[in-house]
């Protein structure tokens, strides 16, 4: 069942949590609401669920307006951040709760409920814990029980509020994979809220980036990472290296650093954003850029060597970060304190005139264009 969000606004006192948000959530897809705390993502999820009312706008499930439908009647599954398992009920009773809450006419007989609970326990791989109480479970087990409980009534929409927020890294990775597999098997329409960009990009079919109560960008993970449409999305998704300077005569300059930008006209302030993988390190400046940097630290762990650098003779708010293959690292042996030069392959230029960046490719200038 697809979900349509139309012009939803919500204020808490003087704070605007959601500001005229419109969004389409496709049927059968796993969508991530990604944003920093206070961006309105949890409020939006709760409004979709019906746990919170909106000040303006409509929510549609598969074309039907459900804005005035009580949360009880929306037939959604909701997984709470802190699980919200019923403390005084056993795991089996927790999972059966939704089925036993059905009106008498729709309620399956006791034996069928028990059967369904057992099947769900198999599915979450905890068949032996039926008679345990929530306090006797680990965080990961609680999360699985919460999922099974939400799925017991076979909802067509599953909403998850920071589902892995309270778990440690190892369990989180396992559960992520498991949730993805579960989703691929059952194909309900799912939305999950997260502030973890890695989680959002890895798990979802579609990512909705939010900030200050507004939708910044909606896209598939790969496209979102490759083509951020705003400074906010750039900054929020992974590390980015920035050269902030004056654009004059097709050249962006700040202190000792400059980058030539053929085909870019104008005379103004501008920022050039580059992902770590879009920049290489060299012992000398190239024909199109001079970006002197001193190596601050070298991190060897991972599939790539990560090198952090401090600008030399110019300024950047954050350290630069550039990746290098282990092979290359062994050949050049860059060490802390060495002076190197960054050579960008691709960059994304923001000027005050345009909110969307213009992509510059120094190797294949013909393919680089502004965003549509």
């Amino acid at each position, binding site marked *: 069942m697809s979900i349509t969000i139309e012009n939803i606004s919500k204020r808490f006192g003087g704070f605007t949590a959601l500001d005229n948000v419109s969004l389409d959530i496709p049927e059968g897809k796993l969508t991530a609401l990604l944003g920093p705390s206070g961006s309105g993502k949890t409020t939006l999820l709760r409004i979709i669920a019906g*746990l919170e009312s909106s000040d303006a706008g409509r929510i549609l499930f598969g074309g039907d307006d459900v804005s005035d439908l009580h949360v009880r009647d929306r037939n959604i599954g909701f997984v709470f951040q802190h699980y*919200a398992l019923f403390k005084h009920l056993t795991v089996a009773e927790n999972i059966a709760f939704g089925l036993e*809450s059905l009106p008498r006419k729709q309620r399956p007989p006791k034996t069928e409920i028990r059967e369904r609970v057992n099947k769900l326990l198999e599915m979450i791989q905890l068949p032996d814990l039926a*008679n345990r109480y929530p306090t*006797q479970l680990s965080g990961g087990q609680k999360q699985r029980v919460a999922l099974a409980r939400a799925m017991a009534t076979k909802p067509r929409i599953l909403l998850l509020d920071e589902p892995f927020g309270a778990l440690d890294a190892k369990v989180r990775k396992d559960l992520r994979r498991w949730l993805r597999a579960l989703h691929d098997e059952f194909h309900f329409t799912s939305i999950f809220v997260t502030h973890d960009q890695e989680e959002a990009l890895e798990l979802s079919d579609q990512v909705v980036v939010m900030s200050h109560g507004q939708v910044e960008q909606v896209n598939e993970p790969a496209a979102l990472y490759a083509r951020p449409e705003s400074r906010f999305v750039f900054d929020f998704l992974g590390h980015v290296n920035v050269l902030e300077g004056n654009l004059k005569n097709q050249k962006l300059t700040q202190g000792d650093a400059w980058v030539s930008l053929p085909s870019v006209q104008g005379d103004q302030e501008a920022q050039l954003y580059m992902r770590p993988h879009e920049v290489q390190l060299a012992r000398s400046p190239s024909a199109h850029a001079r970006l002197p940097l001193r190596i601050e630290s070298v991190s060897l762990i991972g599939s790539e060597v990560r090198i952090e650098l401090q600008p030399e003779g110019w300024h950047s708010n954050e350290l630069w970060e550039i990746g290098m293959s282990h092979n290359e690292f062994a050949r050049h042996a860059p060490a802390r304190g060495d002076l190197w030069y960054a050579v960008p392959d691709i960059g994304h230029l923001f000027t005050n005139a345009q909110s969307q960046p213009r992509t510059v490719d120094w190797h294949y200038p013909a393919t680089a264009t502004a965003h549509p």
Partner: protein
Amino acid sequence: MAAKHHRVGDQPWVRRILVGLALSITVILLVIPLVVIFYQALSAGWSTFTSNVLDEYTLHAIGLTLFVALLTVPLNLVFGTALAWSVTRFRFPGRKLLTTLIDIPFAVSPVVAGLLYLLLYGRNGWVGSWLGQYDIQLMFSWPGIVMVTVFVTSPFVARELIPLMQQQGSEEEEAGVVLGASGWRVFRKITLPNIKWALIYGVILTNARAMGEFGAVSVVSGNIRGQTNTLPLHVELLYQDYNIVGAFAAASLLAGIAILTLIAKAFVEWRQSRPEQPAPERGGV
């Protein structure tokens, strides 16, 4: 070596003096008077004690006291739960003020409360004179006693529930509603089991105070023997009659209630602090 490193305030003489002081105060101020009550009550022998307790007026006082408690406790159970629910689950203007107002009965002397009720609902009072036209008399009869007792004991249940419900939050209830449960089912299956022991604790305290209240009740009851005399008032009446043994016999009943309350309170506190009981593992395959 280890003996040299005391924790702060853990010198042996400090400990001995403080513990000794606490123990002697407890014995002098609490234990001895309690023992004296029972000693005095039984000083003229068991048969005198029973005849004192089974005295017509004493029995009536016991009956009235139980009757008042029986009305007060359920009223304040509902009132306290509703109050705790509203201030912890809803956001509305005046919520903070309401939380403060709950404590008025604790802050005001019961005698003052009794006088206020007399002023309002007495025969010459604002509400009382109006009710008098319909021949309804609240003061100097049992409805007045119930009214002031409800007033005096109203904070106990709410005060027990509010911190607990604040700490528990409403996530479990939200989860219940999302799963399709009706409001009543959510309350019965989720809220109630979570607040059960705090509720019982509040009821025990309410009951103890309802049975023992003197000040407010003495102002509005009129002390009519065999009609509006509760057990605490009866103790005073007997004492003023120079029936010392009778007064102590009646007082020993109240003391007995107090001891039962303490035992029940200790049990509930123990039960409250205990984590959920592990279920027996399912045997076999």
